[in-house]
C-alpha cells in the first residue's frame, strides 16, 4: 500500500468538475498542488473517477512541462531561463547551484531538501536574472547570494 491517498477535498473537487467538459488539466493541477507531483496510484484513481483511460492521463502529464511524475524536493528551486535572464547570466546561477547542491537539473538532493529546475519565462524580465524558491521570487540574483538564499530555506 502506498501512503498516497486521495483526500476527501480532492474527491469532492473531482466530483464538482466531473461533468464539466475539459476538466482533466484542472483536476491534475489540483492533484499536483496537493502532492507536489502526480503519483502513479493517484493517476489510476483519477482515471476511475473521471472515467478516462490512464493512458490519456499519462499522455497529458508527459506533454506539459509543469506536471511531474516524480516527487520533488521539500524546497523547489526554479531558475528562469527566459531570454532576458539568459542574457544576464541565468545559466551561471544554474551551474553555481549545481555545485552547491551536488545535483543537477530535475533531480532531488539526497536529503530531499532541494530540487532544481530551469523554467520558462516567469515574466519578471525587468529584474533579470530571476529565480524562485517555493514560489517566492528573487530578482537580480548574483551567484554570491545563492548561499544565503539556500540557507533561508534549508531545514525549514
Amino acid at each position, binding site marked *: 500500500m502506498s501512503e498516497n491517498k486521495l483526500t476527501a477535498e480532492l474527491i469532492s473537487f473531482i466530483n464538482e468538475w466531473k461533468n464539466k467538459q475539459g476538466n482533466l488539466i484542472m483536476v491534475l493541477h489540483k492533484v499536483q498542488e496537493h502532492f507536489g507531483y502526480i503519483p502513479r496510484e493517484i493517476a489510476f484513481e483519477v482515471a476511475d473517477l473521471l472515467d478516462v483511460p490512464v493512458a490519456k492521463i499519462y499522455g497529458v502529464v508527459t506533454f506539459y512541462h509543469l506536471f511531474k511524475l516524480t516527487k520533488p524536493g521539500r524546497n523547489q528551486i526554479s531558475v528562469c531561463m527566459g*531570454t532576458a535572464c539568459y*542574457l*544576464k547570466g541565468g545559466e551561471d546561477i544554474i551551474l553555481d547551484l549545481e555545485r552547491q547542491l551536488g545535483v543537477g537539473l530535475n533531480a532531488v538532493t539526497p536529503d530531499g531538501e532541494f530540487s532544481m529546475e530551469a523554467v520558462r*519565462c516567469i*515574466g519578471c524580465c525587468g529584474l533579470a536574472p530571476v529565480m524562485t524558491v517555493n514560489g517566492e521570487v528573487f530578482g537580480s540574483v548574483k551567484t554570491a547570494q545563492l548561499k544565503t538564499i539556500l540557507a533561508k530555506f534549508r531545514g525549514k
Partner: protein
Amino acid sequence: MKFTRDTLKSHRSGLHAAQAGTTVLVGMGTCGIAAGAKAAFQTLEKAIADKKLKNVVLKKTGCLGLCFSEPTVEVKNANGSSTVYGNVDAALAERIAVEHLAGGKPLTENVYEQPAADIFNQSASPLKQTRIVLRNCAVINPEIIDEYIARDGYAALEKALFDMTPDDVVKEITDSGLRGRGGAGFPTGRKWQFTKNTPADQKYIVCNADEGDPGAYMDRSVLEGDPHSVLEAMAIAGYTVGASKGFIYIRAEYPLAIERLNTAIAQAKQCGLLGEKILGTEFSFDIELRLGAGAFVCGEETALLTSIEGNRGMPVPRPPFPAVKGLWGKPTVINNVETYAAIPIVLLKGSKWFSRIGTETSKGTKVFAVTGKIKNSGLIEVPMGTTLREIIYNICGGIASGRQFKAAQTGGPSGGCITPEFLDTPIDYESLQAIGSMMGSGGMIIMDEDDCMIDVTKFYLEFTVDESCGKCAPCRIGGRTCYNILDRISKGKGQLDDLQKLKDIGHAMRKASLCGLGQTAPNPFMSTMKYFEEEYRAHIVDKKCAAGKCKEMLTYSIDAEKCVGCTACARRCPVSCIAGEVKKLHVIDQSKCIKCGQCFTACKFDAVKKG
C-alpha cells in the same frame, strides 16, 4: 447588489464625487512584490496610521512600467500634481511618509518622470507614451471593482448593450483598425464578423493569456493591474457574436494574475455585470478560467483550444478556422489579452479617435516589454509607428554600461532581429515583416556588443525544439537538425556549407510546418544569418567568438606582466585550476579550466585575458 443601467450610472457619479485628497499608489505586480514592494507598503501603512494622516489614501495597484526602479510609489497630491518615487525600500518609504505626506515637502532624490499621459485626463500634457491598454494599470486597485467603475469601467458594455446592435459593434471595431495584438495582426472586427455570421446553438469567447514568449510580460501586467478591462471586453464580444460563455486560458506560471482574475470575476458576478441577465437585459454571459501547464505551443490558437478541452495541446490544420469550428466544434472568437484590453476604449472614445493614433495600416498603440542590455528596462506603451531609436534612446535611456547597441530581437523565438541600420524604421506590423522580423506579442530584447548572435539564436532554437509538440515532421526533425548545426558552429566545429544547409531546412520548415511554431522557428537564424553573416563566418572559419560567449572557443590566460600574485583568481576558481603562490605569477591549467570566467571578473589588475 446587481446593477441596472441607471444604478450603475448613479453609482459611478457617486464615486466621482467622493474623490479623496492625497492618494499613495504602490505598484504591486509580481515584479514589484519581488523587488520588495510589500515592505514599502507596510511601512507606509503603519506611518499613515501612526501619524493619523487625514485625507491620505494608500492603494496597492498594478505596474507603472518602470521595472528598472521597482518598487515604485506614486504620490498623487490633492492639487492634481504627482510625484513618482523609485527603488522605495522601507527606509525611503518612511521618509516619504514623514517629509512628503506629513510635511508636505516632496523629496528630491529617487524621483522619476511620470512615464505616460492619462487618456482620461484631457488637460494633461502629451508625453512620449500613451497608455490605452494600460490606462488603469498603476492607477486603480485591481482587486476593487468600484475603482474600475469610477474610471468609466463597464460603460462600454453598457453602451453596447443599450445603444448598439451587434452589427454596430462590429462596424466600430472594424473602422477603428484594431488588429490582433498576439502578433499575427489579424483585423479584430473581421474575426468577430466571421463568428457572428456562423450560425450555431452555442458559441464561445476565448481569451489567450498564455503569454509564452520569453521576455514578454505585457499580458501579465494587464491581468494583474486591470483584470476587469478584459472581462468587460469579453462580455462585449459575447454580446456581439451571440456567445454566452467565455474562457480565459492563462499560464499557471502567473499565480497572482490568476488570483486577481478570480477576484474580478466574482465581483463582476455580484454586481450583475457578468452572469445571468447582465444589467437587467436579456443577455447572459459567464467567464471561467482554464489553466495552462507550461507548453509554449498552447499559445497557438488551435493548440490552445485543444488544451482547454483537456487534451495534449497539439495544433490542428486550419481551415476550418476557430471562427467557424473552434472549441468543442463550435464557432469561437479567440483574441489576445492586449486586444481585449483596447476594446472598451474603442467603443467609448469611438473608432475615429482610435484610428487617429498609429500608422496607415497599424492603428492604436502597442505595449512592449523592453529588456536585456537596456538602461531602463520596463513596460512601455507607444503609438504604432514609433521608431526603435525613440524607444531605446528617448524612453529607455539607451544601452546599459555604455556599450554599443548591436540588435533588438522582437517577436521572441518566432521573430528576428533589428540591427542598428533600421533604428529609424517606424515599428508596425508590415515594416517589421519587411526587414525579416515580426511584431510578435511585444517582447523586445536589446542586445549589445557583448552578446553573440549565434549563442542567442541557439538559445531560441533550443527553446522551439523543446517546445515543439512533435506532431509534424518539418518542425520536429528540421528544428532538431538546425539546432545541432548551430551547436556545432558554436563549438568551433562548423563548416561553410552549414549556412546553406540552415537556409534550405529553414525554408522547408517555413513552407511545410503545420502551425505557427514550426513556420516561424527558423526566423531567428534566417534573420541573424542575413544581418550577421560575418559573425557566422568568424565562428566557422576563424573559430573566434568576438563577444566571448561561446565558451568552447575561449581560453583564459594570465598576463605575466600584470599579475601581482594577489590570489583573488585562485580563490574564486570553482575547480581549483589556478596555481601560484602569494606575490608570484599565477598560471591556469587549461586542461581543468571550465571557462566559467570567475577569474576574469575577480582580477582587479586586468591580468586575466580572454581570447
